[in-house]
């Protein structure tokens, strides 16, 4: 058996091991012994979309404090040019979230500083900026149909400076 053939057999074996391991983890949360975690998670990641759903809407919201002391919503459409679902998913900062609360908090601060800079570049300087997660009920009438008082609940994330 030559080197090429050996490598091809190896690829097949690794692929089968990763897929069986990914499948057993997907279906039974069973971790097949001997298969590296990274392989299992990679394979699992290809089988795991849309496992759950929400019964409310939620979205990252940035607010800026004006000179008169009132808070106003900052329109972030230009800064997050994604379709709504993708934008929401990215707003969770999932890759940083996986690194723990401290990193997540630090990254949301960084996010707020970026917003402050971008707003200032566009002639809209704010005294302070805060980020919150807003929740509101779903409605067939539209995504933001009930995004107003008294339906909104806000969870504070960070405030700068």
């Amino acid at each position, binding site marked *: 058996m030559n080197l090429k053939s050996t490598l091809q057999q190896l690829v097949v074996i690794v692929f089968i091991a990763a897929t069986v391991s990914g499948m057993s983890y997907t279906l039974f949360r069973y971790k097949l012994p001997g298969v590296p975690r990274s392989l299992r998670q990679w394979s699992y990641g290809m089988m795991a979309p849309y496992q759950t759903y*929400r019964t409310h809407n939620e979205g990252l919201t940035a607010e800026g404090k004006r000179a008169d002391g009132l808070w106003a919503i900052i329109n972030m459409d230009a800064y997050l040019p994604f379709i709504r679902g993708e934008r929401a998913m990215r707003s969770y900062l999932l890759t940083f979230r996986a690194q723990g609360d401290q990193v997540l908090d630090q990254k949301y601060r960084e996010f707020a500083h970026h917003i402050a800079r971008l707003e200032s570049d566009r002639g809209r300087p704010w005294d302070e900026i805060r980020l919150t997660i807003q929740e509101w009920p779903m409605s067939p009438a539209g995504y933001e149909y009930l995004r107003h008082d008294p339906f909104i609940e806000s969870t504070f994330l960070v405030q700068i400076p």
Partner: protein
Amino acid sequence: MHPWDSFWHRSVPPHALAFTRIALGLYLLVYAGLYLPHLGMLFSNEGLVMPLYLDRFPAFSFFLSPPSPPVVHIIYALYMLCMVGITLGFWFHLSTFGTLLGSLYIWQLQLHGFATSYNRILLLCLIVIFFSGAHRTFSLDQRKRSGSFFDWEPISILPQRLITLQITATFLGVALQKLWLPHWQSGEILAYSYISRWATPVARWYAQLPLTLRHYDSVVWVVKILEILCAVTIWIPRLRIVSILFLSSFLVLVGVMLSIWWFVFIIPAFVMFYRPEDVLLWFHKQWGDRISKDPVKLTK
């Protein structure tokens, strides 16, 4: 030939894989093209960019930091040029490597990484295709090599098997877990999804129809059962076309109703479930002698 070797390693015509390569290249161009109006905001130091590895590897800040907008545009132009290379089969290995490298670079750079199922499958396809010989027909590389865009040389079936088995595993895993995932035991997940942040106007219109929860229950169960069945029956020649039609419709509907359109790149890859020899005969039948039944004989 031993059945194991015949299944995994036999030499076959490259047409199914080449067709998939072209479709994948076009898909990547569309996908990347959608970001073109926002390159500065998404990838440059003047936008909203939070690189993933910069804090962990500050010594590599030259590579991991977001570049200036002009540099981003140059990098992105090269990145898309590589996708054109994949589509045309031109400097194929360099183009595929460039696309892989560009994808990883952009992924680590882009706002908060979004490593989804389709991104992972896409990356796997790119890695597999790099080693596949998908440019051994319908490619400028082949024209340079033997004189005709339509000449072909045999390749190993292994890459084709890896991609098709991954598609099967994805559909099976996704569908089987729905049999006992708590949130997939009724049609509520569908009803709520149709008014969620992923919902398109078509889904919202559907959600406003006077349909009961029993209707959504039925749809969810039909999808669950057919997804599992089709993931298996796509391997059975007599049932293949029906399975492909259902799975394709399912992927298109996920895009139309839930704006999750990225999985459609799987649809052209369904051609790889057919025997490569049959795909060659089909192309020969369609395009006549332009596509020979026999591989090209290289003089050197």
